[in-house]
Each structure stands twice: as C-alpha cells, then as structure tokens.
C-alpha cells in the first residue's frame, strides 16, 4: 500500500490521527504535537546522517535559528503565520548552507565537534543580546484556531493539527526526495565519495545541498517547537541536540521508516521515568535524573546492540531468512583461489 500509493496512505494516516486527536485529553494532544515536531527534526537528521553521511550534533542550534527567525518576524513585522514558518525554514537553511560549506570539507569527528560547539554556544548568545529576548525569550503566538472549527476546538488541538500537517507534508516530500536523483547521489557519496566523484557526482555540492535541506527542516521543527513551548535559550538546550541524535539512532539512520519509533520514544521516556519515580516514592532525585539516564542508556545500548536501528535489523533478518533456503542471488559469483584455499561468494 505504502509503496504503490504513498499519497493515499499519508492522507489516510492523517485522517486516523485526526480521529484519534478527538478522543484524547489535552495533555496527550499536546504530546502528540511534540511527536510530530520530533518526527520532522529526526527525519532531517536521518537525511543528513544516513543518506549524506555527515553528522550533526548541532541540530538543536539550527532549530533555535528557525524558532528565533519565526518569532522575530511575527513580533516585529506582524507577518501571517504561514509566512513565519517559511521564514524559519529559509533562515535555518541559510545557516545550514554556511555551516555546510565548511562541513563539506570536514570528516566525522571534526564536523561533530564543530556542530557540537554550535549547539553549546548558540543558545547562550541569545542571553547576551537584548533584541533576542534574553533569558525569558518570546512567546510565539500563532493565534487562536479559526472559529469555523467550532467552540470546543482547543488551542492544543490547533497545535496538533499544524504540527502534524507539517510533519506529514515533510515526510511525504522527503520520501520523494530520498528516492529521487538527489537521494541516490547522496547515498553514492556516503558509500564511497571517490567512486561517486568518478561517476560524475559533484561531492561537495551534494553535501552542502543535503546540509541545507536538513537545516531548513530543522528550522521548521524549531519554529513549531517555539509555538508549543516558548522561543528562549531554555527551549533549545544542548540536551535537545542530544535527544535528536538519540532519536535518529533509535529510528535507524539508514531508513525513514523508523522515524516514528524515535519520535515516540523521545516523548515517552519522560513519562516512563515519571511513572517509575512515582512508584519508588517520587523522590526529586529520581524524577530529575531518570529521563537523562534512560535516554543516554538507551543510546549506548542501541549503538552496541542494534547499531543500524531496529527497522533495518528486522529487514536484514528477514532477508537472511529468505535467502537461507535458496541459492545465492548475487548476480556475479566470485571465486578466489590461493594455494589450496578457496573463497567464493557461492554458498
């Protein structure tokens, strides 16, 4: 179904979400909106890590750029809401392009360190300059839901609608992009940049493009997060960047399919931690530290046990099962003989 008619699947999924949102209480609706925001942010990270082979630990900072751009345009120029989201995407994409220009020349640890520095430093810059609202930041007011939606249509449900519409559009579009020419070029660059270059792919340009798109999506997520929360340094802490990395690894960086797993886990973990803390007397130490411990512990365990993510692991296992009965599907069979030993791709 998903393979043949992706658009219809997405529309049906959206309709189911709409039905669900009518039956949930306010808190769950709010959490649902947060899941949608994480879906966008994690998808942008998967595009970057899994497809173009670059790493970013600074997506929290790019989200902050988007959030601040949106709220500043909204407050200073009273722009319509849809326009503020466009501005958020463009501003973050511009930041991402600048970063990407430097990033395209860097490999793993250098890029990780540079983006990490950005994630640590950028939120604190907002404290220094008064036009950025200082410590308490801004409220990003997207207005009340339209009256035509009825009396009991709450503000949180409005957030839910906006966030999920954005998330569905983004994932639909990303699915398309990743299976297009660009997605294939990115994967080629990731697998072997020398071979990609020989095949006529411009490696640097492709890396910068991937970084720009990823940053733009992060900016959109940042604006949405600012809408549901606040636009302030505290809304985009270093922990957010780390959570996103965790979400991406949990989702499995090589496929977009697991993105929901990552997003739901990130929202569920504080809930689970709270439940555990309640059971053990609800002490403050546990409530404060358990979410961080669970997220980080899960991150380490995932990297150790299922490094490519649960979805990919399942695919790999199924492929193995399917193969074990028949002969090799490999189109080319190689046999290598050295002395009396023989290696072959033939089973």
């Amino acid at each position, binding site marked *: 179904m998903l393979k043949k008619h992706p658009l219809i699947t997405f529309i049906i999924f959206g309709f189911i979400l709409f039905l669900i949102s009518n039956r949930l209480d306010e808190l769950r609706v709010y959490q649902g909106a947060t899941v949608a925001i994480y879906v966008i942010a994690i998808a942008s990270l998967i595009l970057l890590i899994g497809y173009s082979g670059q790493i970013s630990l600074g997506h929290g900072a790019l989200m902050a750029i988007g959030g601040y751009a949106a709220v500043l345009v909204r407050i200073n120029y009273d722009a319509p809401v849809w326009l503020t989201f466009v501005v958020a995407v463009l501003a973050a994409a511009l930041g991402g392009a600048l970063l990407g220009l430097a990033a395209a*020349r860097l490999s793993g640890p250098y890029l*990780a360190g540079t983006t*990490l*520095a950005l994630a640590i430093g950028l939120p604190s810059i907002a404290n220094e300059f008064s036009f950025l609202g200082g410590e308490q930041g801004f409220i990003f007011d997207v207005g009340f839901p339209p009256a035509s939606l009825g009396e009991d249509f709450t503000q949180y449900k409005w957030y839910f609608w906006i966030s999920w519409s954005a998330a569905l559009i983004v994932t639909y579009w990303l699915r398309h992009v990743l299976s297009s020419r660009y997605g294939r070029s990115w994967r080629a660059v990731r697998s072997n940049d020398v071979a990609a270059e020989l095949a006529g792919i411009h490696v640097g340009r492709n890396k910068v493009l991937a970084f720009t798109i990823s940053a733009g999506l992060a900016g959109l997520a940042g604006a949405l997060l600012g809408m549901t929360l606040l636009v302030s340094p505290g809304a985009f802490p270093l922990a957010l960047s780390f959570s996103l990395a965790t979400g991406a690894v949990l989702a499995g960086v090589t496929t977009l399919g697991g993105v929901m797993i990552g997003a739901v886990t990130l929202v569920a973990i504080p809930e689970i931690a709270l439940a555990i803390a309640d059971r053990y007397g609800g002490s403050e130490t546990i409530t404060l530290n358990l979410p961080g*411990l669970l997220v980080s512990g899960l991150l380490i365990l995932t990297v150790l046990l299922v490094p490519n993510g649960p979805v990919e692991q399942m695919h790999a296992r199924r492929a193995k099962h399917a193969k074990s009965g028949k002969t090799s599907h490999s189109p080319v069979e190689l046999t290598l003989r050295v002395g009396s030993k023989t290696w072959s791709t033939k089973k």
Partner: protein
Amino acid sequence: MNQLLDMLLIGVSAASIYALMAISMVLVWRSTRVVNFAQGGMALLSAYFGYELVSRTGNFWIALPIAMILGAAFSAFIEFFLMRTLLKHSSQGPIAAIAPIIATLGLLGVIRAGIGFIWGHGDVQFEGPLSKVGYKVGETTLFISPMGLFVIAFVVALLIVVTIVFQKTNIGLALRASAYAPEIAQLSGIRVSGVRTLGWAIAGAAGAAAGILQTVNGIGGLAPESLEFSFLLVFGFIAAVIGGLESLPGAVLGALILGLVLAFVQIYISSTLGFIIAFLLLLVVLILRPQGFLGSKASRRA
C-alpha cells in the same frame, strides 16, 4: 601597558587549563581514533571526586592527586568495557563512522545523570586552598592571583612530566608507536590494546586536573548541567584542532593561541563575544589549515 600584561596573564592561565583538556582529547584520539565528547563530563566527574575527597580529608593537596588517579581509573574503565566492545561490534554500515561519537554522547548523559543521583542537582561549593584575589603592585591589582600562579606552575610541571614520559621512557615509546602504526607496533611485541587503555588513563588524569583547576580557579561551584564544563570541552576541542588533533605540542600551542585570542577579545573588545570568536577561529582553522598547525596532512581523514 597594564592592559597588555593583564591580557597575557589571563590568556596564559586560561590556556594552561585548555591545554590539559586538549591534551586529553589528543591522547584519546591518538589511541582509539575517537574524539571523546564525554571528556568534559569525565572532567566534571573528577572534579566531583576532588570535592568529595576535600570534604572527607580536608586537604586539597592530597585530594588533587587522588582525584587525578580516580579520573584515570574511570577513563581506563570506559575504554576497557565500553569502547572495546563498541569498536568490535559496530564496524559496518553508515553508522560505523558515527557510532563512537554517539556512544560518547550517551556516556556524557549517563555521567551527568549519575552525578545528579549521587550529589544532587544543586550547586556544590568547591574552593581551593589559595586566594583568588590578584597580587597588588603599588596601586593596581594584577589579574594574577596565588591560585592562578599555582595553576600555571602545576600545568607546566605536568607538561614536563608528560614530555619526559613520552620521549624518554619505553612506555612513551610504546604509546607513540601504537598511535603511529598499530599493526607494526603489535608485530614488534607491543600489546596495543593495553597501550590504548593506558592512553585513555593518562587522558583521564589530564582531564581530571583540568576539571579541578578550572573549578578552584573559576567560580568555585559545580553542577551536573554545568555550562562551564561544556565550554571547557569545546575550548579543549578547538585548541586540539588548532594544533592538529594528532600532536601533543600542537595541543599546547593551540591552547596558547586560543587563550591569548580570547583574552585579547575580552580586554580590548567585549567580554560577551568570547564564544563567537572562538567558533570563528575554529572555522577559519578548519577551512584554511584543516590539518592544524602541527599536524600532518594525512591526519584529517580518519
């Protein structure tokens, strides 16, 4: 004239701590090809060890070396149990390049949560035994205090010890050989895996010293979510990258450059620009001279 002297003093005392941090990152990079982003968290944990020891024994001079040993032990433990397993398991697919980075982030989170469980979320006060008030020359107060002077002297002493160990002893030779060519070192009878653990241990000790000195020479407070230690990590990383990420003298040189540039900006321009300038410095170095000032060209790709 006075301002220039202040700039030098501030710059050098900040640089000495960045140098320790940069050295610990370089040592870890050389031994396992991992940039340890949990280094700041490990330094923070060691500073908490120091705080605990001082409050138990009441003597800073005993606490400092013991905390450094504990920091080294913890670092070696991490290498032995986490990094070895990790490098063995996830060596395939697109995750292979980023798995160690992600794992060190997870480690950072675990360390912070652990600190929160043991010592609580509030600030704890950790003051050194020496005064932080600057020396007076005539009417003016200089920016260097007895504590600051001790920090510089201690770091210089540590650097001399590290240099002697690396250049004059067999252990140092083994460390250099395993970093330069692991296979050949293995073939010539060096137990490379053990040497790796040792490299992490020395890095842990250097990080512990950096964490404790940073605290007692700075605001004197510790907290699990300390922004100060995040910046310590970033500045250590920037210093290491300026020096080429491979070379120990490079790390010290990078720390001096970074410390003096930051001090210059702080005194002559504005104290709020520190991070932006450091970040621009990092970008400029990465774009113009990605192999650093004392690194070899080949070291960038890994």
